């Protein structure tokens, strides 16, 4: 799965689940300050990642990574990294 597809997936989550306007979403948008998300929304992002890509968010290692995410770009990179490391073939 290429970076563009991952980005589109992330945008779709933010539009559908968090009811954000697509125009407000860009790679450098900060999740908490700019887009108004909170820790519960991060849990839902993790759930959606699990549903879409089939990998599990492991306690401690991944949760720490999730907590360190600040922007949309950070989130896309984490997903890309997880796809690579879990060797899951995602289309």
């Amino acid at each position, binding site marked *: 799965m290429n970076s563009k597809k991952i980005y589109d997936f992330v945008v779709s989550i933010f539009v559908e689940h968090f009811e954000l306007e697509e125009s407000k979403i860009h790679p450098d948008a900060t999740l908490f300050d700019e887009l108004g998300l909170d820790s519960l929304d991060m849990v*839902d992002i993790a759930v959606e990642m699990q549903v879409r890509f089939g990998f599990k968010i492991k306690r401690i290692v991944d949760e720490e990574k999730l907590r360190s995410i600040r922007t949309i770009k950070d989130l896309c990179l984490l997903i890309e990294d997880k796809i690579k490391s879990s060797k899951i073939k995602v289309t």
Partner: protein
Amino acid sequence: MSNNRVFITGYGAVSPYGIGAEKMFKGLYENRSAVVSIKEELGDNLQFFNCLVAAPLHETPDPHEVPRKYRRNMGPLAVLAYRACLDALVHAAVPEEKIGSPEVGLVFSSSTGSVDSLEEAFRVYLNDTQRVLPHSGSFFKIMSHTCSANVAHALSIRGVNYSVSSACASSTQAIGIAYDQLKNGRQEIMICGGAEEMHPLVVSVFDVLQAASWNYNEKPTQTPRPFDSLRDGTVCGAGAGALILEIEESAYRRKAQIFGEIIGYFSNIDTTSMAQSSKESIVMCLQGALSDANIKSEQIDYINAHATATIVGDISESLAIAEVFRDNNVPVSSLKGHMGHTLAASGALEIIASLEMMRCGKLLPTRNLVTPAPEATVLCHVPSSGQEKKVSYFIKNSFAFGGINAVIIVKKYKK
């Protein structure tokens, strides 16, 4: 210890007649039935049900009225509760800055958490056992204090917060607990009531226990029939009712409109049966409320009965009322024949309807009561056309599975 007077300064209702107390009053005074066939709604589950009628909501609050931050943790149940509480606060004209103060608390009730959300969670779980819940808000929709917690968060109500869950006595107990909080000086204003969402699982509980109406599936508006000789069980309904209770000092300070005064409350449990309350336990509860109110039974002008039209339940209540009120000829009616049994919401909705009866001096009859059952002939039923009556005091009865009894006494406001 304080002994504050407790006034009712506002209310909000979502009933099977629609959103808003005025729609409920209109439906009741037009003597319309809110009971309909639910064959289509049951779909594939139809074969499992004997009772094919219910009083669902004909108008549902739009969840999008609630900001997403709060809505994501709310199932349909909490949205109902939110709307009733919001309407009650607006009706009472409680200033926004007051709502967020620590002197304002909330006691809200429901039979369970959101059954609809519980079903959704199980659908995900059974389909994919690797996932326990569909999303972060799932538990907040399912938990038994979903209404009290969610409404408090969404409306910033930061005082005491309790959740009551006692099935059909839920909102009467919630109002009673709120009354105690105010009477004892713990809070200045309390929002209280109950909500119930319609779900086949709830209907099935009454169906399995043979407490639901089966004989009027083709004639939905003719059931339930409280106190009637042809009654065959109750009909489940949905809704939410909320009251604003306020201590005298606070109500006078802000020149609030006062709709009534709660002067008595009592609750007990009958441990002889899980399914129904005995006459003796109801007598004890009625006497406890009269004692709390410090009035005599002959002062009561109207009794809004629990009377759900179950075969056994109506008998116990009839005999208990007859024993406590003897020859007082106090008019009695039940509103279940109009809008079904809204379970956890019923106490609050029926108190709101009784406040309207007290205001306009016209008692509502028991819809579908044609020929009183032999045990119910001991009561003085409100005639089917209604009854003009000046009401200074009324009683609201609520009884629930588990043997829970709750009685509230309301007095017409006098300075």
